[in-house]
């Protein structure tokens, strides 16, 4: 007999404003084995936790059920609480009545309360059968991979290197430094960007703990905290940096000219080039795309003049395999492609440039750039590609107000005759020293006009540009001519981020940047253990915020690695020895070869078992089982969550894998997107754990449909799960066919964590379908069964 305590959380109104928490607590109190059931405003607070501790002592509780938020959020907190009371952390179960009830179903408080009761009943049923398991300790080393060598990656690498950790800094470009190398000065202090950046860049290669891998890309990442296996491809530069003296002889003779990316295409470079004047590593690179020397017969000019013999056309891409313990993502941003905002004519009108172009012009001389004429009348257009639904970016890019303030006053001060206007929607000078800096620009005579520019029209003869804009303060329509229009382009996530984020199973927030684990208290963590975010990969931010976040990410990584070990979940397969007859069918179904059979009985190697549950369906004797999600537990969950179902109602179960589908359901809840209230979500490590028998039991117990939600194959921690699930489903469908039950009641969807709309569509799709086909008749249900 278990002694269970049930706690229903108000979540400060997040739950209690929709769900009748008192009713849920009263309902739980009447369940067998439940000793006490209470409701409390904040279960995760000290008061709430103390309440649990006291009750465990006073009422001799041995199981705890908390009906609150998703276990993804506070699960770890409550596990610690029960652990500190001397119980196993695995005797705590959570009913997710916030992300799955009060948030998505806020419009239907009554039904949401009923669903909350079902979920609480389900958690109680599982808790009854919880085993007292212990966490397994795993070793962790001191190796970090940092993806991206901009200012965020550099700062994190230096922090970690200085603290004695082994750092692999991977940068896709031939030089580290990122966008900051291109800037003129930094706001609001007007430091020369290259001057403050170059010493930091130079520190990287001399740090003995940092291995710098430039011109390299992460091709694959597999594994988990403490054991991420990373494959990196280092592209050939065709120049040996050890021999190159940067004498420039090769550049003089190179015949291939291409636009210079570093100068935003305002100048050209040769096929052999130095990435930027402060490049680290400081060495020439041959750009294969434009070099003629790939056919050495065509051109070997650089090779011929290179005195130290640094050039080698026969270099090949190198594959580097490393193992690291933690990873910091610092892949940064791209500037918004202004051609998408066609009304401003960027790319079409020669005198419309981006703010990054202006940075380069000012670097070459604010008084009058040798690169191009600026003219005297200059207009800055703000919010280009930011705060604009028409281009799909609703977010504020946070830095454009201040860089325009900077560029405009640098231009004005270097030549007071210039007439400079900044057309803005809202001017946001929120940072330290920003407001003062804005005031300085106003004092210098830069004119700020409140109004978003509707369109730019070029005079085809003079090439001057007419801006149409409403001065929203006087309500006059301004149509004025300018010599130069500067677009204050916003920040977008770096295109290369997605690939690596998918390998690491990190989701994106609606703005397209990567999602942190918690917006307030885990701003640099991700939901993937041991992976952290630094800089603009998480969202637009300025240099000081980026540096602060990089240091925060490195200290979070140090916090994990410094302990030398970390706890691992005991979710692993085990064998009921009395049932096993040593048939070895499970052995071939294990994707990690963790099962062996000796003296007629199977056994599981815990170091190899990843807990996917693929072996369960293979066993004809039901001898294999999975800790934390045992057959008995999942069956008890299924039966209890369907208990309240009335005859005319339709219900379907969603088995959601922990890695993606369950998180996705949380994200949908957080976004307050509603979906079919007939659904009941059951959390499992992987759908491969749901045997055909369990699916049939679910239909017998009253479910009218089943949706299996699993990670996509490439992002799944269990590579063979998909094929196991497919074979399990086809077995069930065969039985349904025989019993004349619609096969479409069983559905299988592979999710990615960002597919919020896809999740909702799938839930509603099945919900609507089941309403249409009506519940399965009792007569048919009874006949369902499977012979092993």
């Amino acid at each position, binding site marked *: 007999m278990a002694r269970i305590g049930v706690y229903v959380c108000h979540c400060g109104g997040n739950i209690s404003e929709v769900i009748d928490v008192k009713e849920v607590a009263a309902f739980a109190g009447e369940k067998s084995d439940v000793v006490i059931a209470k409701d409390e405003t904040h279960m995760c607070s000290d008061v709430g936790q103390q309440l649990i501790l006291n009750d465990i002592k006073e009422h001799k509780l041995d199981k705890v059920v908390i009906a609150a938020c998703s276990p993804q959020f506070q699960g770890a907190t409550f596990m610690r609480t029960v652990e500190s009371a001397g119980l196993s952390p695995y005797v705590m179960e959570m009913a997710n009545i916030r992300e799955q009830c009060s948030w998505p179903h806020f419009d239907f408080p009554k039904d949401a309360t009923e669903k909350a009761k079902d979920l609480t009943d389900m958690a109680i049923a599982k808790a009854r059968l919880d085993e007292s398991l212990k966490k397994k300790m795993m070793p962790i080393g001191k190796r970090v991979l940092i993806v991206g060598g901009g200012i965020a990656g550099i700062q994190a690498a230096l922090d970690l290197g200085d603290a004695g950790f082994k750092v692999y800094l991977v940068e896709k470009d031939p030089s580290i430094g990122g966008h900051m190398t291109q800037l003129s000065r930094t706001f609001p202090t007007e430091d020369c960007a290259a001057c403050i950046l170059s010493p930091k860049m130079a520190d990287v290669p001399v740090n003995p703990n940092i291995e710098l891998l430039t011109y390299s890309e992460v091709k694959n990442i597999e594994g988990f905290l403490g054991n991420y296996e990373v494959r990196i491809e280092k592209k050939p530069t065709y120049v040996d940096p050890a021999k190159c003296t940067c004498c420039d002889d090769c550049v003089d003779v190179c015949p291939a000219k291409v636009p210079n990316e570093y100068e935003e295409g305002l100048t050209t470079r040769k096929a052999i080039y130095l990435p930027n004047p402060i490049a680290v590593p400081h060495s020439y690179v041959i750009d294969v795309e434009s070099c003629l020397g790939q056919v050495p017969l065509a051109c070997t000019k650089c090779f011929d003049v290179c005195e130290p013999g640094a050039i080698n056309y026969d270099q090949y891409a190198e594959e580097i395999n490393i193992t690291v313990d933690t990873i910091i993502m610092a892949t940064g941003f791209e500037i918004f492609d202004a051609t998408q905002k066609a009304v401003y004519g960027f790319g079409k009108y020669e005198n419309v440039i981006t703010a990054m172009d202006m940075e380069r012009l000012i670097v070459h001389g604010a008084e009058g750039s040798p690169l191009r004429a600026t003219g005297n009348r200059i207009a800055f257009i703000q*919010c280009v590609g930011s*705060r604009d*639904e*028409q281009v799909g970016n609703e977010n504020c890019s946070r830095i454009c107000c201040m860089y325009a303030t900077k560029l405009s006053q640098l231009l004005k001060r270097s030549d007071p005759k210039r007439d400079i206007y900044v057309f803005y*929607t809202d001017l946001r000078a929120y940072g330290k020293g920003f407001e003062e800096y804005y005031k300085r620009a106003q004092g210098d005579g830069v004119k700020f006009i409140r109004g978003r520019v*509707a*369109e730019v029209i070029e005079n085809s003869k003079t090439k001057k540009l007419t801006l*149409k804009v*409403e001065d929203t303060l006087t*309500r006059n329509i301004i149509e004025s001519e300018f010599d130069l229009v500067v677009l204050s382009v916003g920040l977008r996530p770096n295109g290369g981020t997605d690939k690596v984020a998918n390998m690491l199973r990190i989701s994106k927030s609606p703005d397209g940047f990567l999602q942190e684990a918690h917006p307030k208290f885990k701003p640099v963590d991700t939901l993937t253990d041991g992976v952290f975010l630094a800089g603009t990969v998480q969202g637009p931010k300025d240099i000081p915020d980026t540096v602060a976040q990089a240091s925060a990410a490195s200290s979070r990584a140090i916090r994990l690695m410094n302990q030398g070990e970390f706890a691992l979940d005991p979710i692993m397969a085990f064998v009921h020895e009395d049932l096993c007859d040593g048939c070895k069918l499970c052995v071939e179904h294990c994707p990690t070869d963790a099962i062996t059979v000796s003296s007629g009985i199977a056994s599981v190697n815990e170091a190899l078992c990843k807990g996917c549950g693929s072996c369960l369906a293979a066993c004809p004797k039901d001898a294999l089982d999975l800790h934390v999600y045992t057959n008995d537990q999942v069956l008890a969950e299924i039966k209890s969550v369907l208990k309240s179902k009335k005859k005319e109602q339709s219900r379907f179960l969603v088995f959601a894998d922990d890695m993606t589908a369950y998180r996705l359901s949380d994200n949908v809840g957080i976004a307050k997107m509603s979906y079919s209230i007939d659904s009941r979500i059951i959390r499992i490590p992987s759908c491969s754990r749901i045997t055909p028998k369990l699916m049939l039991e679910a239909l017998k117990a009253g479910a009218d449909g089943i949706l299996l939600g699993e990670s996509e194959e490439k992002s799944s921690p269990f590579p063979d799960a998909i094929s196991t699930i497919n074979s399990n489903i086809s077995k069930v469908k065969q039985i349904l066919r025989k019993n004349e039950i619609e096969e479409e009641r069983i559905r299988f969807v592979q999710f990615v964590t960002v597919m919020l709309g896809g999740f909702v569509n799938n839930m509603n799709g099945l919900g609507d379908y089941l309403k249409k086909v009506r519940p399965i008749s009792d007569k048919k249900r009874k006949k369902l069964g499977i012979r092993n």
Partner: protein
Amino acid sequence: MANKITITSENVEFLRKVEELSGEIITLCDQCGTCSAGCPMVGEMDITPSQMVRNVQLGITDVLDTKAMWLCASCFTCTVRCPRGLDLSKIAEALRQIKLRKAVDYIDINKLPEEDLKELPQIALISGFRKFTG
């Protein structure tokens, strides 16, 4: 001279009504002015389109007596450019509806001079009666 206005719950009622008729969430407008500057009719208007929206946000019913809403040609230039995704032509239509529902006769056939009656195309007269009597 500057106008003095007070904001009461009646103002909110007007905003709610325009939102209901137009189907647009008018409070989303952040008054950037993109609509006004790109509007092909703005030169003829007494207030700019963004001013029209601002008046509705504040619930100033005087906006019903302005010309802007009648001059809106529903060309959708503002709609495709609005950074907050608002459809201003729907808002102008909502304002016209409210005005028309008051069912005020603006044209009295008896008061039209006979010469004009001969000159004016009949179809224009009839649609004029319909339009202005709701």
